[in-house]
């Protein structure tokens, strides 16, 4: 008979409960799989088919882990939401904004670069923007890691990764048009090219950089789970 305890323990690794509660959950689920296995054997299934039947009891262990955690800590449902979404999201936002400010304050001085060339138009922004953009995969990865560690769903993890570009997106999609409509002191000769460049530079490119880091963490998590499944089989 397969070692169900070992399988459940490895699949529910990261279940954020007190050690004795976690041990209870593992023992209970393993006992259930034991019963399913024996029941299938009594019905005449071969050992391998019976084991397969047990494995089909859970299609997505990650989802089960999340649902057990939510159910067992239901009185702290807000805490779960805070740990899985708000905390990682706000941390990524704080870090990305903080880094941008720090680079502006302590970064290289833009006027040191090529004053009399076309580059001089781009350099003041680029010397701040490019180091910031390069730091974003790390921040996206951190958001994904924290949300994953707290048992966040795929949606929560994705939201955490891209959360720090949402203020810019809101600015471009909502605030800017509203300002243009409501503020009659703003000249209404709207130029779309800079708007799209702004949208690309402050939403799409940072979003892609954050996702690159975040998806890398997701990839490692998925590989770890697949590895466990193979060990379980």
């Amino acid at each position: 008979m397969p070692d169900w305890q070992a399988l459940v323990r490895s699949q529910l690794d990261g279940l954020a409960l007190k050690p004795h509660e976690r041990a209870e959950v593992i023992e209970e689920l393993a006992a259930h799989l034991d019963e399913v296995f024996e029941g299938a054997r009594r019905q005449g299934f071969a050992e391998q088919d019976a084991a397969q039947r047990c494995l089909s009891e859970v299609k997505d262990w990650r989802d089960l882990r999340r649902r057990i955690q939510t159910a067992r800590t239901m009185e702290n449902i807000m805490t779960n939401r805070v740990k899985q979404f708000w905390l990682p999201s706000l941390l990524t936002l704080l870090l990305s904004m903080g880094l941008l400010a720090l680079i502006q304050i302590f970064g290289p001085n833009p006027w040191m670069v090529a004053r009399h060339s076309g580059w001089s138009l781009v350099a003041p922004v680029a010397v701040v923007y490019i180091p910031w953009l390069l730091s974003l995969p790390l921040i996206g990865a951190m958001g994904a890691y924290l949300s994953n560690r707290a048992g966040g769903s795929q949606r929560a993890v994705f939201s955490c990764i891209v959360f720090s570009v949402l203020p810019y997106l809101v600015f471009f999609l909502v605030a800017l048009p509203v300002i243009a409509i409501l503020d009659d002191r703003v000249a209404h000769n709207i130029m779309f090219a800079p708007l799209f460049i702004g949208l690309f530079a402050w939403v799409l490119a940072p979003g892609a950089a954050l996702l690159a880091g975040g998806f890398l963490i997701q990839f490692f998590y998925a590989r770890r789970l697949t590895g466990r499944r193979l060990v379980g089989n």
Partner: protein
Amino acid sequence: MIGAGIKRGTAELAVLSILEDGPLHGYEMARRIEEQTKGALRFTLAALYPMLYRMEQRRWIRGSWETSDNGRRRRCYRLTPAGKKKLSPLRQEWSELFQALRRLKKVANA
């Protein structure tokens, strides 16, 4: 075959009802529900335990470890007074729903 949405809604009622007969562990609970509903309601491990833990948190059921004659440890669940109290209005709600559906000509003829 009963759809997933309806199944979810009836699952708690099924568990509370089956526990009315006496304490049971998860596997036995799932087996009896499947048997009594002739396979219409089937609980996998993934569906059953999060629901049991949620119901336990709501104090509708209480789980405790028991050792069977063959030395196997199992967590048995029993109805709490709060669970018994919950069962009656839950039954009433579903009964009203079924009656309402029966009153609809098209559903009754389905």
